């Protein structure tokens, strides 16, 4: 008699393989046991297709529902879910599409998927640690000598996506409610995008009322924010930004991105406590001494 674990492993193997042959340990009632296993396979497949089309509506629109479903099925085989929360599933779909033969003629598809995943994550992100005024106040208290080693932190919903293609335009013309000119000038890239959840539009709008702001930013700003997201210090991120854009203006960048809430904390090492504003301010106390 197989153990419970063996039963589960064999059952899981059959479902993953899409087998419609009833495993030996499943009771045969009439002739339909294999078909009954197939019910699980179909249900599971449909669940993933539905979840992924909610996350990737523009990708689905671009390739068509049939191709999209086939791509999702292949993705599920290549990247099985490891989480009991289906909302977290699908993060690697963009990279998967990049190597997916059926998507060869759509080189921008990966970037559309990466943008849609960033939007999805922005919807689900935690609230910012500090309001802009508090960040500015904290910054004003940092001793000048401590500034180079200072770490900034991006607010939780902030995402950066870089594309060699006019990604924002491609995404816009593939929105369900878009009824304007469908032409895309594919030479109009690159697009460097900053994605954020709008904190001011949320509360009166209901669950689907979240406004996600997608903004094109220039190369220096994109490089600088990317360096901050990687946990580099103010000096290191400045160096990276200036390498990209020799006229990068740090003062202006701080004003813009603290002012609009993109940077919501400063301190010793935001990576050590990436979601805790209080800790990073504590870190700041140490910097003052």
């Amino acid at each position, binding site marked *: *008699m*197989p*153990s*419970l*674990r063996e*039963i*589960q*492993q064999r*059952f*899981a193997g059959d*479902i*993953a393989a899409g087998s419609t042959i*009833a495993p*030996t*340990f*499943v*009771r045969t*009632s009439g002739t*339909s*046991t294999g*078909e*009954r*296993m*197939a*019910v*699980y396979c179909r*249900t*599971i497949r449909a*669940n*993933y297709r*539905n*979840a992924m089309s909610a996350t990737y509506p523009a990708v689905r629109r671009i390739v068509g529902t049939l191709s999209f479903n086939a791509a999702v099925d292949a993705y599920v085989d290549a990247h*099985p*879910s*490891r*989480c*009991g*929360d*289906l*909302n*977290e*599933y699908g993060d690697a779909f963009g990279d998967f599409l990049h190597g997916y033969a059926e998507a060869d003629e759509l080189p921008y598809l990966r970037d559309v998927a990466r943008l849609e995943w960033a939007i999805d994550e922005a*919807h*689900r*992100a*935690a*609230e910012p640690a500090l309001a802009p005024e508090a960040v500015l106040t904290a910054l004003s208290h940092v001793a000048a000598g401590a500034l180079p080693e200072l770490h900034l932190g991006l607010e*939780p*919903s902030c995402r950066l996506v870089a594309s060699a293609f006019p990604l924002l335009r491609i995404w816009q013309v593939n929105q369900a409610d878009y009824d304007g000119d469908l032409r895309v000038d594919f030479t109009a890239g690159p697009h460097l995008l900053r994605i954020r*959840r709008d904190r001011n539009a*949320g*509360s009166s*709008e*209901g*669950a*689907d*009322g*979240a406004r996600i702001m997608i903004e094109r930013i220039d190369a220096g700003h994109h490089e600088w924010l990317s360096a901050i997201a990687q946990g580099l210090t103010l000096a290191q991120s400045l160096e990276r930004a200036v390498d990209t854009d020799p006229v990068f203006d740090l003062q202006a960048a701080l004003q813009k991105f603290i002012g609009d809430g993109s940077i919501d904390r400063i301190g010793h090492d935001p990576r050590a406590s990436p*979601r805790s504003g209080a800790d990073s301010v504590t870190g700041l106390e140490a910097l003052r001494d």
Partner: protein
Amino acid sequence: MRSNDALPAAAGLGLRAPHVKHVLASRPPVAWFEVHSENYFAGGGPALDALERIRSSYPLSLHGVGLSLGSTDPLSRMHLDKLARLIARVEPALVSEHLCWCGVGGRHFNDLLPLPFTAAALANICAHIDEAQHCLGREIAVENVSAYVAFDDSTMCEWEFVAEIVRRTGCKLLLDVNNVYVNSVNHDFEADRYLAAMPVDAIAEIHLAGFEASDACLIDTHGAPVAPEVWALYRKTIARIGPRPTLIEWDVDIPDFAVLEAEAETAAAVLADGHAVAA
């Protein structure tokens, strides 16, 4: 201060994303709502904001679909932590999960898979329910699931398995009458026998939903009205055990809110008869 902390023995609705705006704007006279816990695991954002506002006006039940209590894998601490965080945030009247497994060996199928009814499966799921109740610091309710296959190794009936889980762990029962009916057809037993074996005092909530018939079996789709046969079983159950919080679930091809309200009204009428008998 939330005045409505317990689930009333009245008809509630499963709240799904397409109806959230309507509920917030019009505050319909629904006795209580239930949501899928995982849909609110996010650290923040408008969905969670909306849930908190709904919670301020309605009793709430949190219904999980991904804890995988019956798996031989360890319980996911991350999943439990997120559930605990959500519980602290919305203070639900009830927290429930399923008597099933969702994956093994680290792989998740994000579906409710059937268990063999054996001593080993019983010991395994009871240990996980104990662990979950300990981690969350509260009782949970567990729901019987629909199954499309049965296992050769089963040594007891499903109703014995379910009743024994409740006895061993002290957990509550979320009795899904539709799932009892679906299984009675799929596995050829008397639904009345199953229902008669349920521990009456432990039944904290009842679920009603629609199934679809395929060539092979009945499928618990949550995509149709509650079937007449299930209403009949529900009436019998309420007449026997008295009124209990009863939920209408509808998860695919979600209809207009008014359709759900009409289903809830049918349940409310059955509950009113139950209240009359109880009085």
